[in-house]
C-alpha cells in the first residue's frame, strides 16, 4: 500500500503522486502512466472541495493504459456556494441538499420559518423519531445531550430541534407550533444548556405564544422549561404568569428531561385507566 499526506497550501504536485504509487512497488511504464491519474484525482479533491474522492476499481488495459471503471466523490455543503458552476454543470439544483433521505413536512416547515427571519437559527429533524414528547431544545451540544437524556429515561422524543443565536419571539413560536402540530404530540419539553446569547425571556414568550395560538394551556402543554442563563429572571416571571413549571441551573439537564418524561408517562397511565 502507498500512503502520503499532501499540503493544502499548494497544488498537489505530480511527484507526490509518483512517490505514493512507487511505494506500492509499481515501476516502469505502469508507474509513469498511473501517476497523472492519482495527481489529477488529488487536485480534483482539493479544487472542488471534496471530502472524499475515490476511484475504484482502476483497470489496466491490454495496451498498458489505466482507466477508471467507477468513481465516488462527495462535496461538502459549506463549499456549495463557490462550487456553483460545477453543480450547475451536473444539474444539481441549489435547493437540492442531497440529504440521505427525503425531508419531512416538519423539516421543510421549520426550514422555511428559519429562512424567513434572519434573527437566530432554528433547525428541526424528525427522521427516525416517532415518539409523543415534542422537543424544543438547543443549542448544538445541548440538543444532543438532552435527546439522550430523554431517551435514556424511557422517553420517546417526537423530534429533534436546535435553537441558537438568539431567535426572535416569532421564530421560537413558529418552531414550537410545528412541534406541537406533529401527530401524537401532546406536550413539549423546552430545554437548553445554559444560554449566554439566546435570551430566556424571548424563548419563553415564543413557546407560550405557540400554545396560546393553538388554543392550548401553556401550563398543561409545556412539560418543563429548563433554560438557565441570559435574562432568566425576566423569563421566569413570564413562565410563572402562565403556570409553566420551570427550573434554573440547579436542576441538571438530566433531571429536567426526567421530569418531562415522568409527566408524559403519568398522563398516559391516567388516560388508560
Amino acid at each position: 500500500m502507498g500512503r502520503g499526506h499532501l499540503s493544502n497550501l499548494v497544488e498537489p504536485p505530480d511527484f507526490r503522486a509518483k512517490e505514493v504509487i512507487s511505494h506500492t512497488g509499481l515501476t516502469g511504464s505502469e508507474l509513469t502512466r498511473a501517476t497523472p491519474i492519482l495527481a489529477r484525482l488529488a487536485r480534483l479533491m482539493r479544487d472542488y472541495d471534496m471530502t472524499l474522492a475515490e476511484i475504484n476499481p482502476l483497470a489496466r488495459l491490454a495496451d498498458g493504459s489505466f482507466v477508471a471503471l467507477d468513481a465516488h466523490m462527495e462535496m461538502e455543503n459549506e463549499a456549495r456556494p463557490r462550487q456553483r458552476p460545477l453543480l450547475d454543470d451536473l444539474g444539481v439544483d441549489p435547493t437540492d441538499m442531497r440529504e440521505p433521505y427525503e425531508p419531512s413536512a416538519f423539516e421543510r416547515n421549520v426550514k422555511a420559518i428559519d429562512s424567513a427571519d434572519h434573527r437566530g437559527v432554528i433547525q428541526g429533524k424528525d427522521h427516525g423519531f416517532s415518539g409523543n414528547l415534542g422537543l424544543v431544545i438547543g443549542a448544538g451540544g445541548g440538543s444532543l445531550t438532552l435527546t439522550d437524556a430523554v431517551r435514556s429515561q424511557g422517553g420517546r422524543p417526537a423530534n429533534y430541534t436546535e435553537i441558537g443565536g438568539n431567535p426572535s419571539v416569532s421564530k421560537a413560536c413558529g418552531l414550537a407550533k410545528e412541534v406541537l402540530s406533529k401527530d401524537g404530540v401532546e406536550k413539549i419539553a423546552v430545554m437548553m444548556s445554559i444560554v449566554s446569547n439566546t435570551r430566556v425571556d424571548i424563548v419563553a414568550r415564543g413557546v407560550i405564544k405557540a400554545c396560546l395560538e393553538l388554543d392550548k394551556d401553556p401550563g398543561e402543554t409545556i412539560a418543563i422549561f429548563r433554560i438557565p442563563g441570559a435574562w432568566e429572571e425576566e423569563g421566569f416571571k413570564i413562565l410563572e404568569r402562565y403556570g409553566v413549571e420551570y427550573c434554573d441551573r440547579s436542576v441538571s439537564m438530566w433531571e429536567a428531561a426526567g421530569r418531562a418524561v415522568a409527566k408524559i408517562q403519568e398522563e398516559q397511565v391516567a388516560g388508560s385507566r
Partner: protein
Amino acid sequence: MSVLLSEDFTFIVQGITGREAVNLTRECLDYGSKVVGGVTPGRKGREVHGVPVFDTVEQVTEALGYVPDGSVVTVPPAFTKDAVFEAIVRGVKLVVIVTERIPRRDVAEMVELADRYGARIIGPNCLGVIVPEVCKMGGIGGPAKDAAKAYTPGAIGVMSRSGGMTTEISSTLTAAGLGQSTAISIGGDAIIGSTYAELMPLFEADEQTEGIVIYTEPGGRMEAQLSEWVKENDSRLPIVAFMAGRFMDSEEMKGMSFGHAGTIVEGKEDTATEKIARLEAAGIPVVERIDEIPDAVKDKLGAKV
C-alpha cells in the same frame, strides 16, 4: 497559572464592527480582558466600546508598537481564511476562530499555515477560551456577570466540542466546588485547529491543572487520538469524559449530522459506542450525565493521591 491566556494577554478582534463582535468585545472588556484593537477593512478611525478600529492587522501592530498575543476572528465564512492568514503572517500566535460554516479546505490551509508560523488556532465554530477571573477571549460564558456565575478559578481543565456545553459543565463543576484552570471551546467542525490531544501537553505542563473534563460527540477521530496520547505519554492528569449523541448510533441516523458540522456517523468508528469503548480502554471514564461529572472527577482525583 493557566493555559493559553494570562493576565497580561492582549488580543484584537477581526471583524469587530459586526453585531456579534460588538457584543463579544463588550463582554471581554467587562471581564477584564485586554482587547487592544479591532480590524474591519474600510472602518479605520472608528471605535467599538473604546477599542480603536483599523483597516489591517499591520496598522494595529504599528499603532500599538507590538504584536498582540491573540486575535478573535469573527468574519463571514468566505473571508475567514484571508483574515486568519493575515493575523498569522503578522505574527499573532493564538487565533480563535468563531465563524461557522467555513469550507474544510480553507480550514486545512489555515491550520497548515499556523503550524508553519508556530501559531495556534482554536476553532473554527467555537466560543473561545476563558481563564476564570483572569481573561476571557471570545463569547464563551456570555456577558461578564453570567460568565462569573458559571466559571470559578480552580484545578480542572475543560475542553469541549460544544461552546454552550463548556459553560454548562463548568457551571456544574463550580456548583460542586470544583473550579477551572482554563476552559476551552475547541470547536464543532470536522477539522479544528487544536484537538484534545494537541492541547493536553499544555495542561500537562500547567501546575494549576490537576484534572481534565472533556465533552465529546460522535464523528471524527479526536477521541481516538486522545486515547492514544494518554497511553503513550503516561499523563499525570486524570480525565473524565461525557459523550453526547448516543442516540445517533441507531441505523436510521447514519449519515445525518446533528448539532455540529463534524457530528455525523459515517462509519463504525464514529459511533458513540465505539468512542466510549476506546476512551474507557485508555482509562478515561465516560459518564452518562453531566451531573455525574463532579463525583467522577473527585473519584479520580482521590484515587491519584
